[in-house]
């Protein structure tokens, strides 16, 4: 069974469109994250939810809006897509505690044309 899954795996869209990426985890974790990996493979945290409460909101354009319907799901909605949004987006989850070991999804490659 896949622990952290993301859909879709690939997403190609035009500038100005609105799109969503979905993430689900079946590990029973209480905290989920979105990361962005740029073309140089650098990974940066975007958002985090703990039990449906937003706990991390980095300096991300407000075109990006996370939504957590329950603690097993964390979706990412992006409005008015721009060329610079092209990247790989990773979802991750953890059980809040001392180690904060995170489990990552397979990633969603977003290409904006």
């Amino acid at each position, binding site marked *: 069974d896949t622990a*952290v899954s993301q859909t879709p795996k690939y997403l190609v869209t035009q500038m100005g469109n609105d799109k969503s990426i979905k993430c689900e985890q079946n590990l029973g974790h209480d905290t989920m994250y979105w990361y962005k990996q740029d073309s140089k493979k650098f990974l940066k945290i975007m958002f985090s939810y703990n039990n449906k409460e937003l706990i991390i909101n980095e300096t991300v354009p407000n075109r990006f809006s996370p939504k957590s319907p329950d603690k097993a799901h964390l979706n990412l909605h992006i409005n008015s897509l721009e060329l610079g949004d092209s990247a790989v987006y990773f979802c991750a989850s953890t059980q809040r505690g001392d180690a*904060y070991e995170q489990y990552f999804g397979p990633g969603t490659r977003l290409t904006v044309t």
Partner: protein
Amino acid sequence: AQSVTQLDSHVSVSEGTPVLLRCNYSSSYSPSLFWYVQHPNKGLQLLLKYTSAATLVKGINGFEAEFKKSETSFHLTKPSAHMSDAAEYFCVVSDRGANTGKLIFGQGTTLQVKP
């Protein structure tokens, strides 16, 4: 504030020779440190973690890392490289002070393994 510096952006070794990937960290708190691996077009997989227990940490696939507080280092090693080890490796520190589990990634080291 926490930060991580991976000292080499690219490391090339021959199959069967040792691997050393270097990482220095900066942390205001006793850190949790991780090494993650990313194979081409794949997600990230945890190799090993340090959480203030034993300073020599053993991970999967024969990898080890040693936490050296005096040197603020957490270098990753493997005695003998395999072709399948070719991947991107990330040294990561957890921002324990914020109690959010926020991970701060190094810039990554690309490991090339030559036959």
